[in-house]
């Protein structure tokens, strides 16, 4: 039996890597993918806690996170397409029209 802390460690590393990806990358699509990575790290933590408390409610939470991730990905990608049509780039450093 693998201890709970192993799974939580993997979850923590994936979440941290997702954070790094969000902050350092300039490509909007890569940023969205890093957000998906962070959601997956949270999912892993939820599944392992569900297993360790023998409570399948955590699986339901993961199911709902799947739906939220799907909605987030579609809306985010639609925004990327809209930005690309208008500015002809997906570089976040080039997006400063809200800066005033």
């Amino acid at each position, binding site marked *: *039996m*693998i*201890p*709970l*802390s*192993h799974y*939580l*460690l*993997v979850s*923590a*590393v*994936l*979440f*941290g*890597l*997702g954070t*790094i990806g*969000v*902050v*350092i*990358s*300039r*490509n909007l*699509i*890569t940023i969205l*993918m*890093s957000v*998906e*990575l962070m959601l997956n790290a949270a*999912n*892993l933590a939820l599944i392992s806690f*569900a*297993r*360790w*408390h*023998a409570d*399948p*409610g955590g*699986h*339901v939470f993961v*199911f*709902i996170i*799947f*739906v*939220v991730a799907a*909605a987030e*990905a*579609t*809306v985010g*990608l*639609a*925004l*990327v*397409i*809209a930005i*690309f049509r*208008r500015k002809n780039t*997906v*570089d976040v*450093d080039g997006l400063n029209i809200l800066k005033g």
Partner: protein
Amino acid sequence: MDLVVFWIAAGVAVAAAVNLILQTKPINSVLSLVVVLFALAVLYLQLSAEFVAVLQIIIYAGAIMVLFLFVVMLLNLKKDEFSAYRKPLLRSFGVLLGGILIIEISLICRAFATSDAAEGPVVVGEFGSVGQIGRLLFEDYLLPFELTSILLLIAVAGVLILATKRTEPPPPEEHS
């Protein structure tokens, strides 16, 4: 045997996640994320979450990632249009932030390593099965489950408004 499978899956997941950040072309990042999702599905199977593991492959790797691939192909970005990473100051800040976050969460996780629940309870065979999750979804968690359909409807409407091509020219940009 269990531990070997765990370390292989965890190693693949972390290596692919690092690759996701390091790749400069978006298409390689998308494929790395698919590898991460499959490795996580293996971990879910180890945690006797069969239904979630199958959903992970069908919905995440099958549907959401295909959407990402389509957008990457649709945009058809020029190679080396801009450098993949932000300014050095922001980059080192990001690595520092992520490193601190990993260390912090790992320290919290050590509390669980020393607690008496390290072995975990024995679960019966139907734990995480489709029947059990389905019963939970339609009994205990009926309201959140129904609300997800409204969320999806809003997402569909929003995407249609955002992504459809308008016929009239866009307003002038130098309106500041």
